[in-house]
């Protein structure tokens, strides 16, 4: 019996088997949901409302990743510099934002920042009072920037010392060296992990819902919470939200994989045997 089963299994291509496993898991999930008095019609009716949060989720993460990349660049340059001020500031920054929970940072920026303004300066206080969305973007940017400092640092350090010396020997200043020689070479190592951070950020942006936000600016999870609570259908609402996040990250993961492939094949040396002397090293064509 067991022998027969193994024989039978060996004949099926691996990909087919993998598809069958996914199918079975999907069936089990559907079965479990059917036990839980699951209102599929409600989900379809409210899908559009929740999905309207998609652009906000993407905008939030788009802005936050720009902030994070900027901070990570300066963070990395600071950590690699030999100035005590630069090292101190960036060291403090990365230590704090990596050492405390993101949700705590969000609330600090949302609630504590306005308190910093002296009471006799109501104008300043108003400008320090951020919307949930603004606070969320800044917190995400600061937090991810702190983690990405390491990515940028590794990328910059991967550029050989000989490159820096050649640029120095030509009379380039620090800025010229970084802008023209080091960063353009570091970038191909920095982009793939930055894509991963962006995907992680898409998920973490759900935390912003905890700050509350005006109806016009709600991202996916906040919308799900709102309709789910109103209609006493929280489970259905969260399933819709989960599905939307899943689709979103999967799409970006595909992009990410493509990008990574492109970047890795650009400069890679492929050793090709050649009858002509001096042309053994040939750059492989980008995919």
């Amino acid at each position, binding site marked *: 019996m067991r022998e027969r089963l193994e024989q039978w299994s060996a004949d099926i291509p691996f990909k087919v088997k993998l598809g069958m496993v996914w199918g079975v898991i999907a069936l089990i999930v559907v079965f479990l949901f059917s036990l839980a008095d699951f209102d599929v019609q409600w989900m379809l009716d409210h899908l559009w409302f929740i999905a309207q949060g998609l652009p906000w989720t993407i905008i939030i993460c788009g802005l936050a990743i720009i902030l994070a990349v900027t901070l990570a660049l300066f963070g990395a340059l600071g950590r690699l510099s030999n100035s005590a001020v630069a090292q101190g500031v960036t060291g403090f920054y990365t230590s704090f934002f990596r050492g405390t929970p993101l949700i705590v940072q969000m609330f600090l920026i949302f609630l504590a920042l306005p308190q910093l303004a002296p009471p006799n300066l109501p104008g300043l206080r108003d400008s320090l009072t951020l919307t949930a969305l603004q606070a969320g973007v800044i917190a995400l940017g600061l937090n991810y920037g702190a983690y990405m400092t390491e990515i940028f640092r590794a990328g910059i350090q991967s550029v050989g010392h000989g490159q820096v010396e050649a640029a120095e020997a*030509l009379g380039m200043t620090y800025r*010229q060296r970084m802008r023209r020689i080091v960063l353009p070479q570091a970038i191909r190592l920095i982009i793939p992990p930055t894509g991963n951070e962006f995907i992680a950020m898409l998920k973490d942006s759900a935390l912003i819902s905890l700050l509350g936000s005006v109806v016009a600016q709600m991202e996916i999870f906040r919308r799900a919470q709102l309709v789910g609570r109103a209609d006493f259908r929280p489970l259905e609402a969260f399933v819709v939200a989960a599905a939307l996040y899943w689709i979103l990250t999967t799409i970006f993961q595909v992009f990410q994989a493509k990008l990574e492939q492109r970047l890795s094949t650009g400069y890679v040396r492929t050793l090709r045997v050649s009858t002509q002397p001096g042309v053994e090293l040939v750059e492989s064509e980008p995919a």
Partner: protein
Amino acid sequence: MTEPVVRVSQLHKSFGDNEVLKGIDLDVTRGEVVVIFGRSGSGKSTLLRCINFLEEPTSGTIEVGGVRLEPGPRTHRQREAIRSVRIKAGMVFQEFNLFPHLTVLENVIEAPVTVKGQDRAHSVAVAEELLAQVGLADKRDEHPIRLSGGQKQRVAIARALAMEPEVMMFDEPTSALDPELISEVLSVMRSLATETQMTMMVVTHEMGFAREVATSMAFFHEGLIVEQGPPGQVIADPQHAQTKRFLEAVL
């Protein structure tokens, strides 16, 4: 004529407790080709790297094209002085160090445009001439990874020349090359010396090249120049026992 392009006085350099240069004095006048040779670890590279402050000397003075440098904190003025020395003293490395993300032409025009602020079209015209001079006009749009070692080194020479330096420093420019590629680089260097009268400091163990091109040879031993003179004299009749022993080993 008598005013030296490079003047090194009482140059000392230590790495921790290891004193690598023990008081070097060396003048290089315009049009001179000084070949520096000596055992591995005797401090030849360190000398060149101290001249353009890739390595900060421990003490002593450097003068290149009238700009005087002494070790000291990197203030704004010091940084600018270092930069002007680096612009006047071109350097060619053993490992080429071409910029892999730029094409051959872009490698050559990078510093003239970025550092000197030269007009791009003018820099391109100059770069094309220099590439023709080193025999690589047809490679202008290739990336360095597609070049052989000898071709890379010739591009590196063109890149340094594009800054119109007053002196060219070569640190073992042919040591990383396969034997059959050495001569193409040496012949570019030879014509640089004989046709354009470039002032050169060359660390090399290519004694054929030295005999033919050098106006002066300096033998390094344990951080000091123990012997210096015209190649005919140094090679044929070395005065110092260490020079004699070294030459017997390489010739």
